[in-house]
């Protein structure tokens, strides 16, 4: 066997099982009960931002989607998969536009580069409030270059603007690349999972976490649905 063929054989034996037996976990996040009303945000003190919203921006602590589904829920493999570092992953972008954080919940990996952009004509001062990681807060006047940061520890970090008190978001720093954030419809998909027993966790900023145990045995799609109890206030 020459070297080339040997290498190909090694590659196939390593890659093939993960392709052939790549399982998927998918599901939907819903709520029962009545969630708190999303409140309109008055940005009149910052006219350059207020004029960017035809209708007032709403609070996003709980964002109900169609058919009792929940948006902005982070669903991720919390146990069963090896820890990963996202240093080589593509940077993620957190944008301040219209005095609003987009996305409201940004999930990324430990070690992965985080870029923070200010697209507004006003200064922002982004201030994430970690408990395990190093805390920083940075002022970003209009036209400033993106702020580049990364986190060493996995945790959910509340993010606020020190200048505009209504601005709020979250960083979900995870030690896995298997994660998803639900959009309208509340659905999620976690693909490319090798066979194994996994704990899947769904995190919602106000309602907390729910977990499910899922076993992937081969090339299959398993369903894990999560349901939170909504709070009226």
């Amino acid at each position: 066997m020459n070297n080339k063929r040997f290498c190909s054989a090694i590659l196939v034996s390593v890659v093939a099982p993960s392709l052939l037996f790549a399982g998927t976990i998918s599901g939907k996040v819903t709520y029962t009960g009545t969630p708190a009303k999303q409140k309109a945000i008055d940005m009149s003190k910052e006219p350059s931002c207020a004029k960017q919203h035809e209708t007032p921006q709403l609070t996003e602590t709980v964002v109900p989607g169609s058919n009792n589904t929940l948006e902005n829920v982070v669903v991720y493999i919390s146990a069963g998969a090896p820890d990963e570092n996202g240093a080589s992953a593509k940077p993620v972008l957190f944008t301040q536009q219209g005095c609003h954080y987009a996305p409201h919940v940004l999930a990324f990996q430990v070690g992965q580069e985080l870029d923070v952009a200010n697209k507004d004509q006003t200064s922002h001062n982004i201030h994430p409030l970690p408990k395990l990681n190093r805390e920083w807060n940075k002022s970003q006047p209009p036209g400033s270059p993106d702020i580049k940061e990364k986190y060493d520890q996995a945790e959910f970090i509340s993010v606020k603007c020190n200048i505009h008190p209504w601005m709020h978001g979250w960083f979900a720093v995870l030690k896995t690349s298997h994660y998803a954030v639900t959009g309208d419809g509340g659905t999620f998909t976690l693909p490319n999972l090798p066979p194994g027993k996994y704990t899947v966790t769904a995190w919602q900023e106000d309602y907390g976490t729910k977990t499910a145990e899922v076993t992937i045995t081969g090339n299959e799609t398993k369903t894990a649905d999560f349901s939170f109890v909504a709070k009226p206030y």
Partner: protein
Amino acid sequence: MAKLFAVTLLIIAIVSAVPIIRNTWHPVEDISAHGQAIDDQMSETMWEAGISFLVSQIFLAWLIFRFSGSRPGEKTKTFPGGAKGLVAAAIILVGVEVFALGAFGVKAWGNIYFTQPGPDALPIQVQAGQFAFYFRYPGPDGKLGPIHADKISEGNQNFFGLDPANDVESRDDIVTAEMAIPVNKEVRLLMHAKDVSHSFYVPALRIHQDFVPGLDLQLHFTATKVGRYEIVCSQLCGLGHYNMKAYLSVLSQPDYDEWLKKEAALQ
């Protein structure tokens, strides 16, 4: 040379008095029931201080003009040692002036800050925090629900730390980022700071009061003219101080009722 200096001093004094005498810089139009007393006091202070300034500058210029240069055989009186009468007269003159301004001024000030609002005054709570003002109006029950500092959640627009799940009084409270008041109606402002010192300054209302962390302060006033005015923070309170402002809308009673109804629907 000294004579040139004396003339220059005289010119500077007169030129600097011109814009004040011509009333070049007007204060913004007063829209409050009490503002006239403040304006009168300010005007009185400006006149008294202005005349004293001019007289003292002219007197100084005359002294320099008259006594400059060397005068052989004449002894110059200096203080301490000589010129005691002149110095004592100056101290008494300035002291009386300062006391007089204080004695008359405190009346205008005390009428606003040391009197109680009427029983029908409209209560509005204002909270200053880095770097925005928020206002709270009682709902139909007429009561403001209690504040729980641990419940403050700005991202969820719970700026006052209300707990409507447990406090019935909080459920109908109306929280706004703009302040609206009915015209010709006395307002009782309940003020507190969430973090550091701030200030509630509405030049048009002739109202200027600091927020002091830990203190609940009260202020009352009546606005007499419909319009939209600026509320600014005038205590350096941090990075975003330059941007800390809100708007005050003085509305007719029907417009105010409509505004409050609209804000209540947004809660």
